[in-house]
Structures are given as C-alpha cells and as structure tokens.
C-alpha cells in the first residue's frame, strides 16, 4: 500500500467526504481486514500514537469496535465516558476537550447526543476528530462499514437499489448512508411512517415512498432501522404493534426484493418490531458481517488520518 494521501484532518460526516476519499477508505479497509484474519492480529503501525475515545452517550458496540481497531494498530487508547445529562451550557465538552488536549492525543473519537458536537470539538483541539455519532446528524463510520459490507456482497455499489426503512428522521445512520450511497451511485429509497420521514430528505439523495412495498420491490439491499417508541417526548406512531404489522420486515415483504438481496441493520435490533426473527437470522442477513467490517473500517480511518506508512502494514 502506498503512503496514503488523505486530504482531511477530521472525519465529521459523509457530507464532507468525496467519492475518491470514500474509495480510498474502503480500499484501505479491505487490506486492514487481511490483518484481522492473521493468527496474530496486530501490527505496529500506530505505535506511540494516542487515541482518546470520548463518549457522552452510551454505546458499547461502537466504542469496543473503535478500541479494538486502535489496539490492532498498536495505538495507546484511553476511554472517557461522561454523562451528557450533567452538561449544563456545554462547558463539559469543551472543558473536557481542553483537558484532554493538554495530554496531547493524536485522535479524539467523539460520540455525543447533540448534532454538530464533533464540529465544535474541532475548534478547540489540535487532534484529529472522528465523529462516532452526533445527535441526529451523522454516523460516518457506520455508513462506511455498511458500504464495505455491501461492496463485499455485491461487488459494486453503483446502480444498486437500496431501501432504508424505519425512523429516518432520527437516524444518523440513515442520514450518513443516504449521502454516501447516493455519492457512489446507488438508488436510495426511504420508507416508513410519514411521521418519521424528515422534510427535504430528497435533497440528501433519497427517494421517498410511503408504500414500503414500493421501496422493497427489487431492492438489492434492505436496511432496517431501530424503532424507539418514544422520540423527543412524543409518540410518533400509535403503537409498536401497528408498526410491526405495517412496516416490519417480514419474510413476505422481503420476498418482494431481489432474489439475492442482503438485509442490514445497524443494531441493536428489536426483533419482532422492525425486523422479524426469521429475517434477522435468515440467509440474507449480513448483520454480523457489518460488525466485523466495523473494526476494519475504523482501522483504515485511524491509519489514514495519522498517515501510516506502507512498511508498517506489511
């Protein structure tokens, strides 16, 4: 692998990443995956580098994935979990950042309940910032691992029909995926209860249909999103029962899709609500591959941001 020339200092969202940079990350991730298949799954690439995982929102899955990625590359890692509920006027984020800054980390991975928190952080630290999910804005590494998974299964992304189903409004995963998939030439459809489809989603690159069957028809990729019954204090749907009945991914609905379609879910799943157990554990499900690819994609990003060298990976 040539020494990477990655033009960004931070990974804030798919909105900021161009097609070529996305390709570079995916190619790098593919080679990182090779490391994960070795008996000794560790290379000295980022030895002496320090990565801080700053999580203001609980997320075991994403945090472990990032930590594992850092450790596979021999970086030193520190995890800080803080309760955002104690954040009054936001001093905590900037104060914490400034304290961390004094210890000179190379990368800060931030998970935060407020949109734009990663942008704010970049204005207060010298370290590279990776957005590991901010509010309802973006979750770029999740989109990248989804792209890697789709590419592994389908070979190419251009021309695929991708259906994203569920609470589009509150899903940063959906937002990042719509931006990324449409940049790479996929046809992205979104569907779900109209109360969960945000205004202007077409401007991100998605087509909207209120008939889930239309979204699923001939789809090559189906992404189910987690339904949380209560969002922002108000019920957006009358009941989970009705949601499962009208919008849930059942084998019958999935049969509308392409014969070789794949089923994705960012997790954690509500089995029996947005996805039936038969579909979640069925032959088309690539949900666990997504998890594996998460580590590879995050290794690639750490490597690219810190400009790792060819020898180190060899």
């Amino acid at each position, binding site marked *: 692998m040539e020494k990477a020339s990655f033009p960004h200092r931070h990974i804030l969202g798919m*909105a900021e990443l161009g097609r070529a940079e996305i390709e570079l990350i995916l190619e790098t991730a593919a080679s990182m995956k090779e490391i994960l298949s070795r008996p000794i799954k560790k290379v000295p690439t980022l030895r002496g580098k320090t990565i801080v995982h700053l999580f203001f929102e609980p997320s075991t899955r994403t945090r472990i994935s990032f930590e594992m990625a850092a450790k596979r590359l021999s970086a030193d890692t520190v995890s800080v979990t803080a309760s955002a509920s104690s*954040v009054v*006027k*936001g*001093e905590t*984020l*900037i104060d914490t950042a400034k304290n961390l800054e004094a210890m000179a980390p190379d990368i800060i991975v931030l998970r*935060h309940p*407020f*949109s*734009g*928190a990663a*942008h*704010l952080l970049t204005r207060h630290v010298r370290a590279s910032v990776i957005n590991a999910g*901010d*509010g*309802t*804005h*973006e979750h770029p590494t999740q989109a990248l691992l989804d792209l890697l998974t789709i590419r592994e299964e389908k070979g190419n992304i251009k021309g695929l029909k991708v259906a994203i189903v569920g609470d589009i*409004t509150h899903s*940063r995963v959906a*937002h990042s995926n719509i931006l990324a998939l449409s940049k790479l030439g996929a046809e992205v459809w979104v569907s779900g209860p109209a109360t969960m489809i*945000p*205004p*202007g*989603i*077409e*401007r*991100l690159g998605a087509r909207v249909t209120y008939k889930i069957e239309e979204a699923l028809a001939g789809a090559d990729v189906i992404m189910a999103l987690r339904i949380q019954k209560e969002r*922002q*204090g108000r019920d957006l749907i009358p009941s989970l029962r009705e949601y499962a009945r009208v919008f849930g991914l059942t084998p019958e609905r999935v049969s509308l899709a392409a014969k070789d379609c794949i089923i994705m879910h960012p997790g954690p799943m509500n089995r029996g609500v947005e996805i039936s157990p038969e579909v979640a554990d069925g032959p088309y499900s690539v949900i666990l591959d997504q998890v594996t690819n998460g580590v590879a994609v995050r290794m690639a990003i750490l490597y690219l941001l810190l400009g790792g060298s060819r020898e180190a990976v060899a």
Partner: protein
Amino acid sequence: MRLLLKGGRIIDPSVALDMEGDLLIEEGQIRAIDREIPADEGLEVIDCRQKVILPGLIDIHVHLREPGEEYKETIETGTLAAVAGGFTAVCTMPNTKPPNDCAAVTKFIRDRAREQGHCRVYPVAAITVGQRGKRLTEFADLKEAGAVALSDDGHPVADAFLMRLALEYSRNFNLPIISHAEELALSAGGQMNEGALSTLLGLKGIPKAAEEVAIFRDISLAALTGAPIHIAHVSTKGACEIIRRAKEAGVPVTAETAPHYFSLTEEAVAGYNTLAKVNPPLRTEEDREAIIEALAEGVIDVIATDHAPHSVLEKEVEFAQAACGLIGLETALPLTLRLVRRGIINWLRMAELLSLNPARILSLPGGQLRPGSPADITVIDPELSWRVTPEGLKSRSKNSPFLGWEMKGAAILTLVRGRVAFKR
C-alpha cells in the same frame, strides 16, 4: 446648549419632508428648520453636508438584561450600543431576572435608565405574572410605573382565553399588546428553520406554521376584542400574507421584523454557527424576499432589532445547547441602508420604519422633526465604511452573525433631548 445642524438632508416622515437645510436646537428642543439659519454667537455649528438628519431612531424590541444578567448587558452598556447605532430610545422586554411583571421592577428599570442610560428607555412589562401564562399582571400599576406596552415575549401566552382577556383589559389602559407569535407545541425542541438544511444538519426544525398559526390566532383575537395587537419579529412569507389580509380587513394589527430576517437566511447556521441561532429562526430566501416586499409595501410597519445579548457561555457550546438571540443595535442602520441603496425603500420610508411608526404604535415621543418637539435626532453618514468587529461593538456581548461584515453607513451623531449622546 444651542446647536445648529448645518446643511444636512433633513427627513421627517410625519410630514413627508425631505429637504436640504439647517436645523436649530435650543433647550433640548427643535427650535427651527429652514433652508438657511444664520449662525449667531454662542451657537455650536455642526457641519452636516453629505449627511442625513433623521428623527431619532426608536427600537421597540430590545433586551437589556438588567436586572439579573448584567454579565450579558446592562442598561448602561445596552443604551451605549443603542446610541452608537443611532437609536435615541429603546423598549426593553420583560424577560429580566426577575421578570418585569410588577411596578417595582418597571420602576427600577426607569430609575436605572435615568441614572446610567445614554438614551430613553421604555419598559415593556409582562402580560402574565412571571411570564408563566397563568394570571394577568396588574396593568394599571405597570402603566403608572412607566410601562409602555405588554408582552410575554419569548414565553408566548399559550392559553387563547387568557390572551383574549389581556387584549380586552389592555383597552382600559391604552397599553398595546405585543405578540411573540409561536405555537409552542409545533416549535418544541426546534433549533432552526425546518427543511432540508435542518435534516442535513440533524437539527430539529421549527416549521413556519409554528409562527403563522400563532399570528392567525392573535389576529383573530384582536378582531374579536377590537384591541390593537403588534406582531413581533415576523420571519415568514406566510406571516406577511396573513398580516396583509388582516390589515385589508381592518383589524388593528401592526407588525415588526428585524434586520437579520431581511439580511440572512437559514444558510447562516451551516457549520453549526450558534451566532445565527435565533428565535424565530432564520428562514429561506423566499421568506427573506417576502419580508423585504412587506417592508416596502407597508405590510410590516417597523424594523426592530430584537437585540438579544448572550455571552460566550451561552454561545460557544453545542448548537442544541446554545441560547437563541443575536445583538442588533449597532448593525440595524447599515443593514437597513442596504434596502435604501437598492431602491427598495426611500429615506422617508426608512425613517417611518425606524422612528415614526415605532413612536406611533407605542405612543412614544419622537418620530418627527417639528419645531417644539424634543431634539431626539440621528445624523447619519450614509457613505461611511466600517467593519463589524468584536472590539468595535459597544454592547457587552458580541454575539453577532455579522462579525467580519463590511458595512456602509453609520450614525455619526446621536442627540437625545438635545444633548450629544454619541458622536463618531
């Protein structure tokens, strides 16, 4: 002190006066206006050639933060910003700490303004006790203490029956009700204008309907009660249309907008710029154009700033945590002059929007340049170029989305009761 303003372009919208001439001030009053007034002994002469002389600007919607949040602004610093921006009078909203919901607070503001203020300060008192929307304040007491209008501003009266009572009762005291039009059930949790950009940024949106539904309600109540209602900070095209129709139907409604609604769009918040977070939020280009049209056509009567100082503590935070509001006293004049320069409004209309109409709507002195009236006067250099910088602003807070902008036009002399309150 006797002052002669020599050779300026004198604008008085109350009599549609727009002439070159001299203006004589004696004992705090305008004594004479004429083509040529001879300068006799003991008269201080100020050269006003190439300058425009307006009746002192009046801002009927500001937040001076005193009492309670003096770290953001005080009556002293806020009025200093006002006179630097060309304003000779400001009306200060009741959301102080404690809120201005009783005569004691109203009186405190009046007293403090008398001691430390650089311009006239008129308190706007709360409609309901604690701005909590449950019980009316004592309108008579507030009026006697010096309140000139009533508003719960950022805490709009949600109970339509209580709003009806307020409008009815206000008729006894000639205290206009100012409506901050916002249907809270629709705007709850909102951070910016609802639309594609809010979706892209992952920020909860505030639909235009939140404003329009509330304006419609308050206009209906004004029609029902016959009491005048003044709609604060109009930001949408739909709102302009509702107000236009109400005026055509003869409802006693007046309206204001703020310079940021005709100068900026929601694009200003891109990158999570908290300096552009304001309530109601900045809208779209379509709305901005409609606001400009409404200003030109007389649908909107007043330009007010909604000057809302906040410190870095409230602004240098996550967007969702940031306070709403921006400062406007020192940028209102050049931003409005952009409309004059583009030929959308003329000088007379500008003086109407920034001085005569505010005075008329709240029955305040000023708004005209007539012999015998108080010498509240703003002299403007329309060609003066300057750059908005934090250091250059007099306001204690610096939360302006216009920082870094090149402005053209500024007040060079602000006279309050014939005394020089500001000179550039």
